[in-house]
């Protein structure tokens, strides 16, 4: 185990239900989603005075437009936190959320802070283009062969992984169907209840018939992505989305989504002072680089690295939240590291539950720490691949 001054503990973790792109949260601003997540996580531990929060670190993969202007600071102010609390937005693409958790934990582990909020927020509905509102690639990328793949779309990298790791179309589709089935079963069993903070949504829409603004109000309670009618036959009909003779389709890729989550991280001193029972101990975090053209394989490098850092054996990890950016890369990671499929995404993954980019790491941290509690398991991991070729892995130890 690496040297540190003290441990960091998660005492609350919550998230909004994840919405499909242009779905139930399609009109909800990312700073509003973030504010709701922060308000909800603070409400779960009322003894903690929000003024004690040293900093709010928020992951976001496209921090511009509605989620620009340092969305962290805006979100915490909208949440009603005192203006003495600062906020910072961090970006490591799809790992931004778990990166935020690691950075918050590190402030505590170094003794610089006693109370931190880590969060993530992302709207893929309000962002017009998946690469941001103004695409502006560096021409130098095309000057060197080794940099050329920076220009690859994520789907294309999944095709490269599928080809190199020989992941068949059938296997990808079967994996995708299983993701939907697990997610639907988990929703039916109420397994997400503990982690979700339902969100009251108000949409103001023009009614052209009456000439009035129609105010639509509803409570978003459940994840919107899972399809109970997903089947191999249906998925087999979809055409490859990224390559003429490819195997990666819209059906075996993660869904584009909207979502936000927040995690309250504290020191041992705070646990004792307020007699708090933590959900989990933050046990370590690692990130590693791989070739951009096979970015999906990133967790293969990050997972062993964090395990070594924490002194934990892979077999001792009971639960892997492995982000399903694409079935192809998830399967390649599982097969390469020989991860036990029964331990990977027992409640389904991003193919069913959605992938709100920079929020996902925080969202799945909430899923993991509550899941470990419910199943009385010990070690769990949140891991994912990252665009331009990286992998991240955060390790958590359940405390109850």
């Amino acid at each position, binding site marked *: 185990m690496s040297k540190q001054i003290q441990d960091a503990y998660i005492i609350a973790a919550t998230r909004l239900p994840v919405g499909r792109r242009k779905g139930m949260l399609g009109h909800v601003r990312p700073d509003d989603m973030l504010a709701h997540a922060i308000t909800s996580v603070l409400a779960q531990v009322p003894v903690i005075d929000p003024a004690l929060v040293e900093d709010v670190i928020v992951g976001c993969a496209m921090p511009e437009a509605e989620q620009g202007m340092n969305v962290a600071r805006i979100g915490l102010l909208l949440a009603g936190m005192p203006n003495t609390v600062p906020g910072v937005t961090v970006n490591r693409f799809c790992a931004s959320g778990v990166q935020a958790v690691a950075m918050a934990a590190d402030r505590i582990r170094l003794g610089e802070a006693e109370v931190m909020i880590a969060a993530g927020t992302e709207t893929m509905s309000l962002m017009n283009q998946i690469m941001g509102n*103004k*695409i*502006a*690639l*560096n*021409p130098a*990328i*095309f000057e060197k062969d080794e940099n*050329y793949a920076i*220009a*690859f*779309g994520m789907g*294309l990298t999944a*095709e*490269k992984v599928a080809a190199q790791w020989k992941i068949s179309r059938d296997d990808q589709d079967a994996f995708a169907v299983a993701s939907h089935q697990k997610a639907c079963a988990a929703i039916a069993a109420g397994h997400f209840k503990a982690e979700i903070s339902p969100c009251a949504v108000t949409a103001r829409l023009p009614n052209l018939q009456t000439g009035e603004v129609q105010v639509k109000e509803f409570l978003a309670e459940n994840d919107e992505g899972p399809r109970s009618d997903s089947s191999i036959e249906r998925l087999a009909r979809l055409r490859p989305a*990224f*390559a*003429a*003779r*490819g195997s990666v389709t819209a059906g075996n890729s993660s869904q584009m989504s909207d979502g936000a989550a927040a995690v309250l991280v504290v020191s041992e001193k705070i646990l004792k002072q307020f007699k708090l029972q933590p959900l989990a101990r933050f046990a370590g975090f690692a990130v590693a680089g791989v070739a951009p053209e096979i970015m999906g394989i990133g967790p293969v490098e990050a997972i062993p690295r964090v395990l070594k850092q924490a002194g934990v054996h892979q077999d001792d990890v009971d639960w892997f939240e492995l982000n399903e950016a694409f079935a192809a890369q998830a399967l390649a990671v599982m097969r390469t590291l020989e991860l036990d499929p029964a331990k990977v995404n027992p409640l389904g993954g991003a193919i069913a539950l959605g992938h709100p980019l920079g929020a996902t790491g925080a969202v799945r941290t909430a899923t993991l720490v509550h899941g470990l509690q419910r199943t009385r398991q010990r070690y769990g991991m949140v891991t994912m691949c990252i665009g331009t070729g990286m992998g991240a892995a955060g390790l958590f130890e359940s405390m109850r």
Partner: protein
Amino acid sequence: MSNFIVRRAAVLGAGVMGAQIAAHLANAEVPVLLFDLPANEGDANEIVNRAIGALRKLEPSPLASKDRVAYIDAANYSQHLEQLRDCDLIIEAIAEKTEWKDDLYRQIAPFIAPDAIIASNTSGLSINRLSEGLPEFLRSRFCGIHFFNPPRYMHLVELIATQATDPALLDNLESWLVSRLGKGIVRARDTPNFVANRVGVFSILAVMHHTERLGLGFDVVDALTGPLIGRPKSATYRTADVVGLDTLAHVIKTMQDSLPDDPWHGYYAVPAWLAALIGKGALGQKTRCGIFRKDGRAIKVLDLAAQDYRETAAEIDPEVLAILKNRDPAEKFAQLRASGHPQAQFLWAIFRDIFHYAAFHLAEIADNARDLDFAMRWGFGWAQGPFESWQAAGWQAIAAAVKADVDAGQAMSPAALPGWVFGQVAEKGVHTPQGSYSASADAFQPRSVLPAYQRQIFPERVLSEAAVSGATVWENDGVRLWTLPQLDDGIAIVSIKTRNHTLGREVIVGLQEAVARAEAGYRGLVLWHEAPFAFGANLKEVSEAIAAGQFELLEKYVAEFQNTSMALKYATVPVVAAVQGMALGGGCEFLMHAAKRIIALESYIGLVEAGVGLIPAGGGCKEFAIRAAQHAAKTAGNDPFEFIQPVFMTVAMATVSKSGAQARELGFAVDSDKIVFNANELLYVALREARGLAEAGYYPRLSPRQIKVAGRTGIANCEMMLVNMMEGGMISAHDYAVAKAAATALCGGDVETGSLVDEQWLLSIERQLFVELLKNEKTQQRIQHMLTTGKPLRN
């Protein structure tokens, strides 16, 4: 005279025809209420909503652009009849059952506005009989309006009056259908199946009869009755499959039931083999099986003898083919008749019987021979109507041959040819410069003089009618500069003369000369000729120069091309481009440089240079770069790339618009350009537009000097898209190279993002990249392939 206005229309019945008629009204900027029965459960408009949804998926699209669908409002007879009161035109297009139509008319009668027109799209029921289903006060405003499928693309609409129809109302409706919807109108008598279907269905029955008699295969007959004799590619049996064999049987049944005294009545029956197919549910294209069947990629044909489907093997006998290639129609028909080959006998027989049938029934079904011929051209896609074919081959010779066959009992009916065939038409035929023969009036009838037709300077002509020639001002081998003194002698017209209106050297210098002469002596210039607008640069000239290694010459050639574009753009008089049909490559670039575009709805416009491994270099990329800078300047971000991105894909993928309206969306035209629905009106509208611009004090804008370009970052952004397409196996390495060149031209070259350039800079980039690509072996292969096969090569 009060104006005839259709502010809103209703279509009753959201079947295939009703929905597509609604779509075409929406194309013409007429909002439509589309009615059908209320659904039994769920959304009451479910039936109509489904039909509207299906419109988006149909190919070829009934919608001129996707957003048109928003102007079709779903309605049902239970909830929305009240809204009929706002409709000026109501078209009923429900199933062909008189009782159902009677019921519907009763239901809607109280909701019809006092001046509204109500018209039935029946394809065969008696209009007078349907009229009786309406209360008396509505009957003067009722008529038949028979569209053909698909209604956007089929030019023909048959208008049928009842005894009670107000003639003035019908005239107004005709003018409106011609100008606003772009249709060709034939006034039909109220006889079963009207004109086109009466003759067209008989033609199918005659083909079926002679196929069986001579033991020919369906595939052979389709090869014989397609383009070789001036009929559509789908010929006879493939057309039947497309129409639906059950629908065809239904139309035949109408003739069988309603024409008991017709001399050909014995043939108005569904052949046993056809009935058997229908019985088995093999209804043609909609069931993927009919006379033809698609087996994977292969199309198989029904073999009656084997009672099974076999590979198609449509072989036309060389002797018959040689006869068909004979350009002299008189010799052709004589040879077909004289030949002993079954294929030749078949062809003579089907023509003979259609001539016989058309002549016998002319007096009863149509006002004159012109209407009958137009009905077949516009409704069935024949290049010539039966009377035109007859007359072209020599009226008297054909008349004698038909008579001899009838007398010998070889024709399908023993009915004698009517006397007029040997009377006053015998000398010159039915079509004369003074008019076409009316058998009912026994006179030659001139064309209609309704106001809509005054706008058609170049209407579609029947045999013997001459086009307006105008007064030539100047011409070379490429173009003719002329005027139409009777309309406006102050506006010059320049027309391209080359085959397919390709743009060779003579055209390029000719257009410059035309601009110079227009500037010197006229108030405006219209670029007009009949379709196609232009097929692009003359590749043969380009290919010859490449073979001779004359790349410097080629660069000068491109520069000359650009000079022509610039001459059109900066002419001191307004240049109006009147566009119809294909406008590809350089043709597209020329129209982009005009002061204004008048575009026929059916115009297919695109920069297709990528198909031959080149980029637009006649100023096309330059225009897009300028427009991107101008659009960007009006946005907060002022980023030209935002406006380059969509046009880059259009240019790189050689996208061609599927309508005039879509040409606006793709950026080849601008919002202020006019879409004209009837291509025959193009010249009239363009002349008026040029005159209007001139009278409003036209002057060209100065060439922009500070054009902000997307530069290197823009090129990199485009390259990112290309990398993904190439790595995904969607484009070749040469596609990549060509598209990157297009990106470079669109982004103003390899310069810093946001650099300011001028128009000549952009032209120079285009020109250099174009010539570089000409030197590329793969581009040369593409050009050769296009010249030899007419198709693009993806190498």
